[in-house]
């Protein structure tokens, strides 16, 4: 009787959730989280119940989850595996439930057997032990939305707890991140590490290691033989000997690097790959390496992996290019200091003149505390002032961003506040000439709002498709 009730509840959750998805889409709303919320209300242990119907791959970490998921999806496609994914950043338990239920028939049978799930770090703790993923990919840990997650170390603790609850999962971990790599210490899980070979990246910026300069095991200061950015690099603890583990997937050369692409050489157990990534930015090389780890796990050959890496284009909002006549709008999501710095460094590779807009919101999904903008190196923009035709700030906390720009060395007369997204886009496009670029750097919910306007005006694809 108890089993029967349990089954009925699951069936009810599936049917109602599917109806909710259809209903919300008909009303032209995304409907990526709410249906799952309903499902979890009706059947609280729905994730555990569904876990054996799917082969699950989870991706978590502070930065690069979405991009890594997208490249990982390419690896699955290349392997001939049909999959479902929570593409639009609906990465809490509710979004995951929606995604899984969508892949079920009305009788609860999985029509697609593999699920690729980008998962919020705090949600990972609860969902991973229930879903029993076959593979867990972790990108990195940086300070991010501390108002929501608490401290960086508690975020790491969430992921660690999730992994301890999934002892069978194969872990694909960033070797260069002392925090992320520590997840592979003392566990029985098989681990595939990825990272940059020692000294490959020409920059040695030791000053910006604010997130994790001290050993996670014994609190001594790490020494580094090379650094890629922030606290990522070849670290070693002089006291307890904890050091950057050997990486099976390794970037052994950066052959070229500009504002559109980077060409890298990647060493895998199957051989070396030279691939031209259609993604700029050092941080995206890490994302490509993480996804290569999955390709390796799936048994893809070097040519297949190369094709996936080269064929990938940037996803929803993380970096999106929209052509408007002969001008171009590039929108790049910024959400924490390390990610912001990477985007600013990417802007430095820009050679033509451009216009820049920063859109800062402080809703829950953005982080209600905006102090993180002071940890990002906006000063970089003052070094390239001569190439920037105009500076705009927008969003709920536009004025805070204006102050940040002023203290970064941009004259206050040059900083324009524009809260209306339509007018913002008009003015930006008006400020650049043909073949020039408008850069919009929004936080998460600001991106959704600006994207809505761009969608209405320039007919972008709906993001849940």
């Amino acid at each position, binding site marked *: 009787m108890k089993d029967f009730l349990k089954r009925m509840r699951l069936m009810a959750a599936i049917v109602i959730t599917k109806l909710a998805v259809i209903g919300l889409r008909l009303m032209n709303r995304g409907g990526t989280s709410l249906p799952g919320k309903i499902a979890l209300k009706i059947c609280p242990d729905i994730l555990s119940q569904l876990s054996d119907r799917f082969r699950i791959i989870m991706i978590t970490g502070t930065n690069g989850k979405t991009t890594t998921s997208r490249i990982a999806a390419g690896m699955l496609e290349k392997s001939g595996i049909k999959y479902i994914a929570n593409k639009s950043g609906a990465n809490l338990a509710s979004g995951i439930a929606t995604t899984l239920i969508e892949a079920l028939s009305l009788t609860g049978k999985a029509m697609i057997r593999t699920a690729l799930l980008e998962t919020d770090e705090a949600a990972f703790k609860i969902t991973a032990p229930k879903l029993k993923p076959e593979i867990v990919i972790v990108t990195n840990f940086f*300070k991010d939305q*501390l*108002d929501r997650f*608490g*401290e*960086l*170390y508690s975020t790491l603790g969430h992921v660690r707890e999730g992994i301890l609850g999934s002892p069978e999962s194969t872990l694909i971990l960033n070797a260069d991140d002392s925090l992320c790599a520590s997840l592979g210490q003392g566990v029985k899980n098989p681990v595939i590490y990825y990272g940059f070979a020692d000294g490959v990246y020409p920059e040695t910026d030791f000053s910006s*290691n*604010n997130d994790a*300069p*001290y050993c996670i095991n014994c*609190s001594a*200061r790490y020494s580094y033989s090379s650094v890629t950015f922030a606290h990522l690099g070849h670290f070693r603890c002089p006291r307890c000997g904890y050091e950057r583990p050997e990486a099976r997937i390794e970037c052994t050369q950066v052959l070229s690097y500009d504002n559109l692409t980077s060409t890298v050489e990647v060493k895998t157990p199957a051989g070396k790959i030279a691939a031209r990534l259609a993604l700029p930015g050092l941080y995206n090389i890490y994302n490509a390496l993480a996804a290569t780890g999955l390709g390796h796990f799936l048994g893809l050959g070097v040519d297949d992996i190369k094709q996936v890496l080269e064929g990938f284009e940037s996803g929803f909002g993380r970096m999106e290019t929209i052509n408007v006549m002969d001008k171009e709008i590039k929108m790049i999501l910024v959400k924490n200091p390390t990610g912001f710095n990477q985007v600013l460094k990417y802007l430095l590779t820009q050679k033509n003149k451009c216009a820049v807009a920063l859109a800062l919101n402080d809703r829950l999904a953005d982080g*209600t*505390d*905006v*102090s*993180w*903008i*002071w*940890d990002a190196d906006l000063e970089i923009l003052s070094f390239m002032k001569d190439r920037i035709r105009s500076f705009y700030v927008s969003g709920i*906390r536009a*004025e*805070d961003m*204006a*102050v*940040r720009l*002023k*203290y970064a060395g941009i004259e*206050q007369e040059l*900083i324009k*506040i524009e809260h209306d997204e339509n007018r913002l886009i008009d003015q930006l496009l008006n400020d650049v000439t043909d073949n020039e670029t408008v850069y919009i750097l929004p936080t998460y919910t600001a991106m959704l709002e600006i994207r809505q306007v761009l969608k209405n005006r320039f007919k972008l694809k709906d993001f849940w498709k």
Partner: protein
Amino acid sequence: MYKLTICHLYPDLMCLYGDRGNIIALTKRCEWRNIDVETVSVSLNDDFDYKNYDIIFIGGGQDFEQTIIQDDLMRGKRQRIIEAVEEGKVFLGICGGFQLLGKYYKTQSGSEIECVGALDLWTNSSEKRLIGNLVIECDFLKTQTKDGYVVGFENHAGKTYLGEGVKPLGKVIKGFGNNGEDGFEGAVYKNTYGTYAHGSLLPKNPALTDHLITLALLNKYPEFQGLDPLVDNLENLARTTVIKRILAEKA
């Protein structure tokens, strides 16, 4: 030409929530007035010779980092920090840095972690984190044209209580403040200021920033007459916009 030296204590460890913005604000507002500024970082195992510094800043840290500096602080720097405070150096401690200036921090399990003890205040850990926007009213910043409001963001798991010798920084208008109970926020003792407000605190509250710079210049140059005014349109717009929004949330 005037010159100020700022000491940033433990910048690699106690620098959370945009604490760096406070150093940037102090620096820029001096530079815009042609006051020469230098910032010196003092961290683990470094000497802290406070006599060389005019403004001393310590920010917030995570638990992990606070345990790292504990030894260093108690071994060498503690006595010097007490002397600096007593001598009237301009000192600003935010969040974890504010708590550290007090006498002790009592953990959930009831054990007391000894702190610097430069200020007569103490902190008990609370189960619930006190998180959100914070608006306070500071009498010492009030003038005929200025409301004395200071705005920031608080995020702390400790409840701080003030002893006899120290005064609160301000009265809570919106938010929790020191402990969410007595309606006050922060602490002032001589020229030392402690607060839970980050955000960053100083860029958006130029009156407070200028107050600290003025105190530091008066310490060093007894003949100093006062700061030249700056155009603070953006700062004030950011301040009033967010204050208006926070106060409206009440309804």
